[in-house]
């Protein structure tokens, strides 16, 4: 998992500015799209907003950009309240999910457009547009029109165009979601490289957790119009503060548990609770596949609480593999192991699992809508009481 990159320290360009979103509210015909959304972006920082569809990510971004009016709250950029300013006075670069290049202009003209509006001299305009296209690696395509470029190239030009005006803030709304997986991963790293190079404070919206974790200084997980957790990617993944975050980010098992006092009993193992205020009684524990280790084959008695089961599926993911183990009683769990270990347990073999005694999150809510992406299907278990 990616570790947090030092905020704004890698930027070689000018420093970014601080951006504060304070208690933003927005309703659409009775539906609350943003409900007291607050977030502070430090100068030069890249924050990824992650959340399920309809949680208000786009709305938040559009409020910052001024493309939508807030019902309440403030947007403060570099100490100045810009809430009342129209979009064209805010100096924010935006890259959209849909291809948004002006079709009647070449790549260079697109990039130079914002500069032309600012009255930059023709020679300087050309120079800066050229530099920007260089930055995104497209100088060879400068004279092409949008329909002569691939989707990935178009989005790069859109990025260059947004950055050419030297915006105070860079806003990206799922800029990669229309691209295929390989280009997406490539372009995402490129966006990060460019962002570090220019040092612009950036808000990046995505519903792809892998994307968010890979690229961001901090990840903000949103739910129903508010921020659920804001932390470095590693922290969001390994120490989720709420069951929602735990389930939305990364893969997790839902396992019946019994809470009593400050511990929860999960599969016969007593685990400390993350949230010690949880009331006693039955609940669902959210357990990462990495929390399981293989303890050996049946008959090995060296472990205190082995969980005996049968491997019913193995998924090879490269260096690691994920095995699905049927523990009987209608309970299946996923465990993630180094491929070298997992290869000894093809489907059908018996296996002993061991549950690490990490602090555990419990919930009493229904499962979160699984996020899209191959690594994001939550495993649901019902039927066996803790």
């Amino acid at each position, binding site marked *: 998992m990616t570790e947090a990159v030092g905020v704004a320290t890698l930027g070689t360009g000018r420093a970014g500015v601080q951006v504060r979103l304070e208690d933003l509210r927005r309703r659409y015909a009775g539906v609350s799209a943003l409900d007291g959304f607050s977030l502070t972006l430090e100068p030069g920082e890249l924050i990824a907003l992650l959340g399920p569809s309809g949680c208000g990510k786009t709305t938040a971004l559009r409020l910052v950009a001024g493309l939508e009016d807030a019902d309440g709250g403030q947007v403060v950029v570099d100490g100045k309240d810009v809430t009342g300013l129209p979009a*064209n006075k805010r100096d924010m670069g935006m890259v959209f999910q849909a291809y*948004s290049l002006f079709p009647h202009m070449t790549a260079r003209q697109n990039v130079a457009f914002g500069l032309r509006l600012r009255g930059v001299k023709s020679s300087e305009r050309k120079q800066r547009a050229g530099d920007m296209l260089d930055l995104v690696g497209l100088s060879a395509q400068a004279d092409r*029109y949008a329909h002569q470029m691939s989707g990935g190239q178009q989005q790069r030009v859109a990025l260059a165009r947004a950055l050419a005006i030297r915006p105070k803030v860079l806003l990206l709304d799922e800029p990669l979601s229309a691209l295929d997986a390989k280009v997406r991963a490539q372009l995402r790293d490129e966006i990060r490289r460019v962002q570090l190079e220019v040092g612009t404070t950036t808000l990046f919206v995505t519903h792809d957790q892998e994307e968010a974790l890979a690229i961001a200084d901090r990840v903000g997980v949103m739910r129903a119009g508010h921020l659920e957790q804001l932390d470095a990617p590693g922290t969001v993944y390994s120490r989720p503060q709420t069951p929602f975050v735990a389930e939305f980010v990364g893969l997790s098992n839902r396992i019946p548990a019994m809470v009593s006092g400050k511990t929860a009993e999960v599969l016969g193992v007593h685990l400390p609770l993350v949230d010690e205020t949880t009331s006693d009684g039955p609940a669902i524990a959210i357990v990462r596949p990495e929390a399981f280790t293989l303890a050996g084959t049946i008959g090995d008695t060296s472990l205190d609480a082995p969980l005996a089961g049968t491997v019913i599926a193995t998924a090879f993911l490269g260096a690691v593999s994920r095995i699905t183990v049927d523990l009987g009683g209608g309970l299946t769990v996923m465990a993630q192991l180094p491929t070298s270990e997992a290869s000894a347990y093809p489907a059908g073999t018996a296996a002993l699992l061991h549950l690490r005694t990490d602090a555990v999150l419990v919930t009493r809510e229904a499962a979160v809508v699984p996020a899209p992406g191959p690594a994001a299907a939550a495993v649901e278990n019902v039927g066996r009481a803790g």
Partner: protein
Amino acid sequence: MARTRGINARRRRRLNVFRTVVLVLLGVFFLTPLFAMFEFTTRGDTPSSPRSLAAWGEIASAPNLISSIVTSLGLAVITSVAMIVLLVPTMIWVRLRLPRLFRVIEFLCLLPLTIPAIVLVVGLAPVYLWVTYFFGDSALTLSFAYVILVLPYTFRALDAGMSAIDVRTMSEAARSLGAGWTTVMFRIIPPNMRAALLNASLLSVALVLGEFTLANLLNFLNLQVEINQLGQANAPVSIAVALGSLLFAFALLVSLSFVDRPRGSSAPPDEGLIAPLAPVENATWGQQA
């Protein structure tokens, strides 16, 4: 392999035959009246006199004719420009900011289609007392009425053009780059719907060049009114002018459709020009009787 090629070849041959037949039939259908018109203009004064192009020669010397042609061309230009200046920003604004009003605007624009010209005149006559009072009695003031008359056709053409591009994203991208609404409405959206603008203008031009009823009833002298009057005095010359104006409009359409061809391979692709031209034939040229 050989068999499929044989089938394909046969099918292609059949398709070609079909195409040719349709083309010939349509050609005959459209060209016969034109040819008949031409034949009529070349007749002499009596059945026995030799054919001549005298009627065509008289066009230049017919009083008022040249000036009425100039008037109609002027009306066509003013109407097209006014229609675009009025309609394009309105439609963009409604699309982006007031989507709820779209149906209302659409209804208003289509309304002139449902009101017979003769009824329109009854309403327009008192209005034109004021128009004359404020703008003088030039026939060019007819463009006020003509802008209304062309709305139904041009609205459709422009709406189709706007639906073909992502107006919202484009304008939001422009605004985030610092563009005001005027820039969006004149420099961003219109260049990307050139074909639709051209269509709408063509429709206006064709409609205006063929308009008779309003001009006649409001006592203005435009091309069609002049042709009509001329027809009572000198039929061959009037038919010659009518044919001439038809050919002119045809040449205009063809030349404009070439203007719109993408420059080399570098211009963005535009929708074709052909489809919306169909109503021109019916809506315009049917009116001269």
